[in-house]
């Protein structure tokens, strides 16, 4: 197969990527995983309390039936007594890295700016814990959040799932599970450059091989950690890889964004398209020249600011805030 020329990176993103190249190799393998897990990704030590403006609680709640408990990090505006809508946040990290303190800065800001609760779930990681452990942990946390909403001052009728990268894929999967298992009800799913297709064989995945962030080698690493030999085969569950879902009807309104210069471009565009084809509601943004996670790694770039502003506008519409 002839690989077409990759789309160029946005100028500011290209410059930022040049500076970050030594910290962010495009291709990750399981051999480099221990070092990556040990690295401080600059967000881990972040002050989630925003100097006291946000109350941060850590709760231990039951996991999936017969499985270990899970941890939920609950963020609320300090001193806010009202019942609030909630972002149910699932962190990224390729299914193999990260923890529930890895929350995009903009979402922490939203807690104060939009008066929201944010619940960030800690899920077990592959390869130690392959599918379905990660997604079932995420779903169990959502079920607890909806059922015990009053305990954390959350309106159970106003919960959205949000996540970036692997977190976006898990958020999409949790939305499918919530539909298929009859709850909890969701008012939206914000899928930020979501990782949803284990087949790893789109044009964009080939175009961006060895380039940018999270190329198809990294993607193979993540999916193989999650699915083992089943990756790319005929019997992968849509709850592992939402692109595999044959029915995308009956889902809550989706927000999907992705860069034009990243592995996930084609699978994410296809996902939004199939939601429309199934009669659903989706808002799709493809940011030209964006690499994977560009707005988190280069938040200052003009295009990153626009991407974040688009999310904020969508969220305000969904919440009527």
């Amino acid at each position: 197969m002839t690989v077409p020329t990759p789309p160029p990176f946005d100028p500011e993103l290209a410059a930022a990527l040049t500076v970050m190249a030594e910290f962010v190799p495009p291709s990750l393998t399981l051999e480099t995983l221990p070092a990556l897990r040990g690295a401080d990704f600059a967000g881990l030590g972040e002050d989630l309390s925003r100097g006291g403006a946000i109350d941060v609680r850590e709760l231990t709640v039951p996991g999936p039936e017969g499985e270990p408990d899970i941890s939920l990090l609950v963020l609320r505006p300090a001193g806010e007594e009202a019942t609030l809508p909630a972002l149910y946040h699932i962190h990224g990290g390729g299914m193999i890295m990260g923890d529930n303190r890895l929350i995009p800065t903009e979402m922490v800001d939203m807690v104060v700016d939009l008066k929201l609760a944010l619940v960030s779930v800690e899920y077990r990681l592959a390869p130690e814990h392959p599918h379905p452990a990660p997604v079932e942990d995420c779903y169990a946390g959502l079920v607890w959040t909806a059922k015990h909403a009053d305990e954390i001052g959350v309106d159970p009728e106003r919960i959205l799932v949000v996540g970036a990268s692997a977190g976006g894929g898990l958020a999409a999967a949790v939305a499918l599970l919530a539909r298929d298992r009859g709850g909890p009800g969701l008012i939206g799913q914000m899928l930020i450059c979501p990782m949803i297709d284990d087949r790893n064989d789109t044009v964009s995945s080939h175009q961006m091989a060895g380039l940018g962030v999270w190329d198809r080698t990294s993607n193979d690493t993540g999916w193989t950690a999650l699915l083992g030999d089943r990756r790319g085969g005929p019997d992968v569950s849509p709850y592992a890889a939402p692109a595999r879902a044959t029915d995308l009807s009956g889902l809550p309104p989706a927000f999907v964004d992705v860069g034009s210069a990243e592995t996930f471009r084609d699978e994410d565009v296809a996902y939004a398209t199939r939601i429309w084809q199934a009669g659903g509601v989706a808002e799709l943004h493809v940011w030209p020249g964006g690499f994977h996670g560009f707005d988190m790694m280069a938040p200052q770039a003009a295009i990153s600011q626009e991407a974040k502003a688009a999310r904020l506008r969508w969220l305000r519409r969904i919440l009527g805030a």
Partner: protein
Amino acid sequence: MVRELAGRLAALDPDASAAVQVIAYFDRLVETRAGLEAIVRGAAVLAGCPARLLDPEHRVNVRVLGDGRRQDTADPPDAAWLHAPLGYEHATLWLERPGPAGAVDLMILERAAGVARDALTRTRGRAPSADPALVELLLDPAAAEADRLHAARRLRLPDSGVWAVAVAGAPPAIEHAGTRMRLATPKTARTPGRRTGIGPDGPVADLPDSWSAAKTALRFAAEGDDQDPGPRVVRADELGGLMVLATAVTADTEPAPDVRALDHAASAAPWMLTTLYAAASEPSLRTAATTLTLHHSTLQDRLTRAEHLLGWNLRDPQGRLRLQLAFALRRLHRHPPT
């Protein structure tokens, strides 16, 4: 996964690594032909404070905060803030922070100003004028090589294929093959009719040698009129052994007898020097006659008279060489080293 470019840079070794990263950042902006706002944003984010580009002449006023947000203001900048001129009249890049500047700040200012100047040139359609002090530094053999290479980067010269140009009555200039852009103030741009010496091309580090050779070549350049016939533009690398001759003639060297003879002949007839120059430089007397628009026999008559005045034969190779050398020496006397 990873956040904050500025945080990353701050965590680096503040001198070595960060400076390299700053260069890499702006180089990439150049490659991708980024616009002015992206350049100012780069300066702001890398420096961690507001940055501003002001060019009153082009009505450019771009201000970006340290977090990358665009926020213009009509307030004038504080003269105490760190700033760097772009080389235009009043165009300046500002970092809204008082001095003293750290090594990284200086690097940011210098690179951002250089890249912004190029972007302005591209988008506003105007050739930049080079900072004469930088050109001078590049041509100065006594300057440290590191300083010269630094100046070359500011002038955005390629690493090699550059040469010095000496123009009579004008400041020194540097040219390169890529753009043939003239790095000099506009009023010194090479004008036809001005005597010019061109140094050999080579790496940036060899520019002082190129400049020295260009000045020597300028001494061999003629005014191109009746009293000083010859080429107005002379390339050092075409002079060969004549370069050695130049060192033998200084301002107080007595003219050789052949030079005196040439001046003596010149005073005898207004056509003398142009005729002799044609005879010395044209491939044959026939083409010399054509150049001078003379009948061949008229040229023969003139040369006979000239031979009488000069005292040597002009129609054999040795005589012609002697005439060429006399012209070369005469120019060296007319244009002594500066």
